[in-house]
């Protein structure tokens, strides 16, 4: 059984995309939790879903669609100070999902792709385009490199904006660059678990890691590893589920989400 698992090109692609998305999301997620921007992260994912729908409609690469609209979204969200970002993120999320609804409506009526809503919002890692694994790996490495260059000022600005500004950091520019990186990680996660579930990979492992250690660098490494274990475990469980209910595969996004949440629950339970 395991031979078949690793020999399958579809599974290799899924493992590559899932692992790359989880590694980048773990690192970005720790910043997101520290900055209190979980809602911005989720709003970006929902906005980028209209890019996914646009890609289906035009027949272009879904990754380009997700990232393009994610960039637009981060431009919009970057205008706001953090204090009144809750409502603004909500309003933009609604407008973004509205556009997704319209584009999906066109995609279904003109191109007849009935399952597009599920693929975009809830993902289907086994149906990812064959070349996407390499792009995902490249994107994740570029994102990690970028974060490594910005590490110290970004961390300081995330913990205390005032202190960072006092020390001469360009806080608003950093905030905007962070949103761009957030859009990149959301794109990769949307390819793996879908736009609306991408928050699982972004926040779950990071929140778990931050309960285990208070040191940011350690939390980021831990979150990346936890996320990758969950993503790969989810792919393996979904592959195995084919023999539980004959002829039907349970959604791989469910298994990844379940692994992430159970890890969090176990840690939260032990820590009280």
């Amino acid at each position, binding site marked *: 059984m395991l031979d078949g698992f690793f020999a399958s090109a579809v599974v290799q692609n899924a493992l590559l995309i899932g692992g790359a998305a989880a590694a980048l999301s773990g690192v970005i997620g720790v910043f997101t*939790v520290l900055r*209190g*921007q*979980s*809602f911005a*992260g*989720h709003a970006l994912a929902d906005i980028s879903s209209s890019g996914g729908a646009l890609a289906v409609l035009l027949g272009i690469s879904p990754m380009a669609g997700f990232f393009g609209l994610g960039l637009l979204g981060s431009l919009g969200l970057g205008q706001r100070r953090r*204090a*009144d970002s*809750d*409502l603004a*993120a*909500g*309003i*933009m*999320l*609604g*407008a*973004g*999902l*509205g*556009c*997704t*609804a*319209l584009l*999906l*409506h066109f995609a*279904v009526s003109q191109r007849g792709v*009935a*399952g597009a*809503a*599920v693929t975009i*919002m*809830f993902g289907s890692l086994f149906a990812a385009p064959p070349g996407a694994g390499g792009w995902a790996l490249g994107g994740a490495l570029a994102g990690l490199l970028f974060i490594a260059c910005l590490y110290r000022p970004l961390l300081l600005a995330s913990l205390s904006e005032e202190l960072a500004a006092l020390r001469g950091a360009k806080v608003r520019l950093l905030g905007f660059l962070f949103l761009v990186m957030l859009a990149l990680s959301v794109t990769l996660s949307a390819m793996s678990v879908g736009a*609306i*579930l991408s*928050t*699982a990979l*972004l*926040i*779950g492992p*990071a*929140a778990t890691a931050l*309960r285990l250690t208070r040191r940011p660098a350690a939390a980021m490494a831990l979150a990346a590893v936890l996320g990758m274990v969950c993503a790969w475990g989810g792919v393996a469980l979904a592959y195995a589920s084919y023999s539980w*209910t004959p002829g*039907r595969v*349970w*959604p791989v*996004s*469910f298994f990844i*989400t*379940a692994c*992430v*949440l159970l890890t*969090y629950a176990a840690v*939260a339970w032990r*820590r*009280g």
Partner: protein
Amino acid sequence: MFAPYLLSGWIVASLVAFAAGFTGFFVVLRRESFAAHALPMAAFPGAAAATLFGVAQWAGLLVAALLGAALLLWLKRGQRRDAATALTLVALLGLGALFLSLSGRYANAVYGLLFGQVFASGPADIPPALVLAVLVPLALLLFFRPLLLGALSPDFVAGGARGDVLFLILLALAASFALPVTGALLVFSLMTGPAGAACTLAASPRAGLLLSAMLALALIWSALALSVATGWPVGFFTGVLAALLFLAARMWRTARPVPRWPGPA
């Protein structure tokens, strides 16, 4: 535009919009937009589990909504509010994805629950919507003062945590019952756009509450009319018009600043 087969859609959507306008006022004041997005998603596992296990839909929705609110309250104890909300959201959606795929009507159900098919509703959907449109505003008016004070100065009100529990449970119940008919997008846009505009414009909390409900009705009626005229989805017009409404209110207020009650931002 008011053809008989569309009439149920108009009535149900108006009733839901009225309730959403009321709830949205407190959502905006308490800065709980994220919770207003996350908790209604209990409709995904609720409706799907009801189909899968063959129980009544309202029972599935009730259990799922209460479980969602309980999960959020438990997570909040050891976690920042926004991260706890994010975890609740993915827990509900992940379970929903499983149940929907096992019950075998994945694609249609996902589109319907997310973006809504208001005009597919029939006369049977009106009574529950009517109950919602009466009970939710009534409960909010009954607890108007504690909810308002708790939103504006959380440290000032003793028992603020109780108000929090009450509000989240009400939010979860109201929204997840509306959701299978109207879709997540419609409910959420109706709760944030009109209320955000009302809080920006109104001179007092009471006026804000009323204005929020009125604007929500105006919004849903324009969206429905445009949808019938063009044949495009209602959710698109609701989402985009809500954003435009909010932007217009903000620009109006920037052009004519007046001293006002200490609402949000």
